[in-house]
């Protein structure tokens, strides 16, 4: 059941990314391009996505997930260097190629060799992240 629900959620996510145009790197880069011909589409996508999720968070209060377990607790509010450094690195890559992890997977079937290349590099980056995190923590501890 958990896998079926996850499959449906992933499918709906993929359909939404396709319908919204977020698999098109020119739309993503167009939104980030405030000095060029700015494309507002991504703002509508993010706004549209936050709406049902805000309702879901509210509904979740005082309840439990349908398939058992508990809802993820509100995260530790500490910000930390990994959050900031990681987001800056991610944003730079996102701007450079116009792809983030969801669309990189969703567009794999039609994205050609470029999509495969980006995804392979992204997965390698994910595999390299734990040692990089340790390295960042080491530098901070030494300082």
């Amino acid at each position, binding site marked *: 059941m958990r896998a079926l629900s996850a499959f449906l959620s992933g499918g709906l996510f993929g359909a939404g990314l396709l319908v919204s145009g977020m698999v098109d790197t020119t739309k993503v880069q167009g939104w980030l391009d405030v000095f060029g011909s700015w494309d507002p589409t991504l703002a509508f996508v993010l706004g549209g996505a936050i709406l049902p999720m805000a309702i879901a968070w509210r509904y979740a209060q005082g309840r439990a997930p349908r398939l058992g377990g508990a809802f993820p607790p509100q995260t530790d509010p500490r910000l930390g260097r990994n959050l900031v*450094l990681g987001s800056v690195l991610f944003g730079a*890559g996102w701007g450079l190629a116009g792809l983030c992890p969801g669309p990189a997977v969703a567009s794999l079937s039609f994205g050609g060799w470029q999509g495969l290349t980006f995804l392979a*590099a992204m997965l390698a980056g994910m595999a390299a992240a734990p040692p990089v995190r340790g390295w960042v923590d080491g530098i901070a501890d030494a300082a």
Partner: protein
Amino acid sequence: MIEQDWIWGLVGGLMIGSAAALYLLVNGRIMGASGILGGLIDGSGRKDWTERAAFVLGLLVMPVFLVPLYDSVNTHATQNVAILVVAGLLVGVGTRLANGCTSGHGVCGISRLSLRGIVATVFYVLAGGLAVALFKHVLEVI
């Protein structure tokens, strides 16, 4: 069709948010693409790998059935291998360091008014804007 882009953006956004709501309310998990994928890659998600793999499979397969409904679907990604590799590495390392990407921090975090989600989003949008400004308008390589 250009003038209707925002409507499709909104419709697609509502679908993305509904997918996240389904994953939260039924499975009790945050729908973050980088976290779900990353847990499969670095082994941290070994105990619930079927759930993660099922999500990734749905994400990968669903567009296959929808693409024929469009005249043409194109990611318009750059042909520059170096840019694709560098950008992919940055996205992979960055999202795992930050513990989230556009879906986890952006959609799931902001909707919960999570400070971490909001701060992460501010930083990746700023960095993305700077990257586009630098590489498109100054260096003119993208």
